[in-house]
């Protein structure tokens, strides 16, 4: 559609320019409006929210859904679990990627060809999630919170990303450090780690968002709610209980709902806002790291 219209009218035609701006604005609207709709419905008075017909501005203003929500101890537990997985995963991811990238970047590494091959094979072939699941069973990591950290604290992709960044650091710097008597460890600590900060930020941001949003691995490795992350809690409420919105809620919260005559949908929407907030408020600030990572990742090819 967009193209045929462009073809008809000559360059510089203000009508086309306006049309393109309208299309771009429409794209932004389509991405933002669903979230906005969820927000205004969650803030409306329960009697309006129950009709689901709140389209432009909240009808009335009511925070009861949120006050009911924050009493849900299960949610807080799940929130805490997510933090428990995000923090070590991020730190370990930066560490594991850095050391292997540093090794690969070391000029006189013996067996580099083999090492590169060793890293490339798993990028193209995988055994699938069934055999990974069997491995987790075998290692005794099933039903164990460590299953959310140990298998996911490294990534070959990230190793290659850091390696391609390290390659841009001039050799003269490590040569100079060596002349001053620094060993390989000191060169890593005094040259590559301080200079690699931008790429560490990229990887940290990728890992934080990735771990925060991941649910599949947790859903197959963690059968009990005790250690399940926030995303699985959300799945129970938003996806599995879509027939009756109030299943799987804390009794305390349920009581609140009944008292206030609040619809399950409103509570669900409040939950969507409440749990996306950390990511939604921060992503505009770290989007530049994602852009950088995408571009660097493509350059390596």
């Amino acid at each position, binding site marked *: 559609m967009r193209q045929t219209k462009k073809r008809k009218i000559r*360059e510089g035609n203000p009508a086309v320019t306006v049309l393109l*701006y309208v299309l*771009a604005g429409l794209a932004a609207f389509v991405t933002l409006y669903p979230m906005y709709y*969820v927000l205004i419905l969650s803030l409306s008075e329960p009697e309006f929210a129950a009709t689901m017909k709140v389209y432009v501005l909240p009808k009335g203003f009511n925070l009861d859904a949120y006050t009911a929500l924050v009493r849900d101890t299960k949610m807080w537990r799940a929130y805490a679990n997510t933090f428990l997985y995000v923090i070590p995963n991020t730190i370990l991811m930066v560490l594991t990627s850095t050391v292997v990238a540093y090794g690969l970047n070391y000029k006189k590494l013996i067996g580099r060809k083999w090492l590169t091959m*060793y*890293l490339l094979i798993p990028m193209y072939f995988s055994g699938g999630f069934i055999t990974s*699941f069997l491995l987790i069973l075998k290692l005794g990591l099933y039903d164990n919170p460590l299953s959310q950290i140990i298998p996911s604290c490294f990534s070959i992709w990230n190793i290659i990303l850091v390696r391609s960044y390290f390659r841009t650091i001039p050799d003269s710097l490590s040569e100079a450090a060596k002349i001053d008597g620094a060993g390989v460890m000191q060169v890593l600590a005094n040259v590559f780690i301080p200079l690699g900060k931008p790429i560490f930020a990229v990887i940290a941001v990728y890992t934080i968002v990735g771990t925060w949003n991941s649910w599949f691995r947790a859903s197959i490795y963690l059968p009990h709610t005790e250690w399940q992350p926030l995303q699985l809690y959300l799945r129970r409420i*938003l996806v599995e209980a879509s027939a009756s919105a109030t299943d799987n809620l804390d009794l305390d919260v349920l009581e609140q709902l009944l008292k206030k005559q609040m619809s399950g949908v409103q509570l*669900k929407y409040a939950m969507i806002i409440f749990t996306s907030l950390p990511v939604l408020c921060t992503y505009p600030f770290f989007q530049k790291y994602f852009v950088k990572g995408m571009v660097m990742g493509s350059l390596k090819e």
Partner: protein
Amino acid sequence: MLRKDNSGQKKKGSPKYGKGVIKENLQIYALMLPTLLLILIFCYYPLYGVIISFQDYVPGNAFFGEGVKWVGLKWFKKFVGGHYFWRLIKNTLVLSGLNLIFGFTAPILFALLIDQIKHLKFKKFVQTASYMPYFISMVIVAGMVLSFTGADGMITSLLSVFGFEKQNYNVNSAAFPWIYTFTNVWKGFGFGSILYCSIISSIDPGLYEAAKLDGANRWQQVWHITLPGLRAVIAINLINTVGSVLSTNTDLILLLYNPATYDVADVIGTYTYRLGILEGQYSYTTAAGLFTSIIGFIFTYIANKISNALTGYGLW
């Protein structure tokens, strides 16, 4: 002669096998060892575990040695001859095909559109907005979609304005492929455009100036300058998309589907999940997974061949 001498000298004089180098290598390998072990365990061991697709595997058994029952291609035959095989293949191809038509092209079209926006603040705003869905988790996206397309959801109400029947689209098989495709496009088009945008911005502006002087209109500039500039990336992305045609976005389907929509939504990945993880048929589902990987590899190979012949770009 000279060259030979040189190389001999270099080997002799080079510190490649010097004491210091070996010591440094040891230190570096010691540093890498934990990560390399993790890769061995969590990447290579599952790869090796694929051997169970040729066995009657019982959990707890070793992969070789006593007690292993080799069954040859039994599971592959069972899968290919199975009741659900053609349904799974059809569903997988339909959903991947829709994704190829819409999901693959949307980021390219969006990047071309964004490139035409010259007001920088507005451009930045639209781009930032378009990345948002990428950062929202799949679970939340699925929750929103299920709610919006439910009996009194926002999208259902919107559609009823255009004369569609008010119904719960989540249990409607005909609607599922479109819901799935639209969700995929919505979640990925902005983020997918990043790479295209960065390449467009690296195209020499002089080319556009020259084209304008020659009287090229907006569309001709896009067709003769921007798109050729994107050719290599488009070719490579297309090969990858074609190669993963049998591995649909299982994540999203698992969240969106239900028994009422299995007839169009059940794909190889979700089938493997139900029978493998939930019912414990490990050998059978591993065989199904291996089958998918092999077909995927063949697809990638063919797509790469075609792309090399047509565009000159390929993965290898």
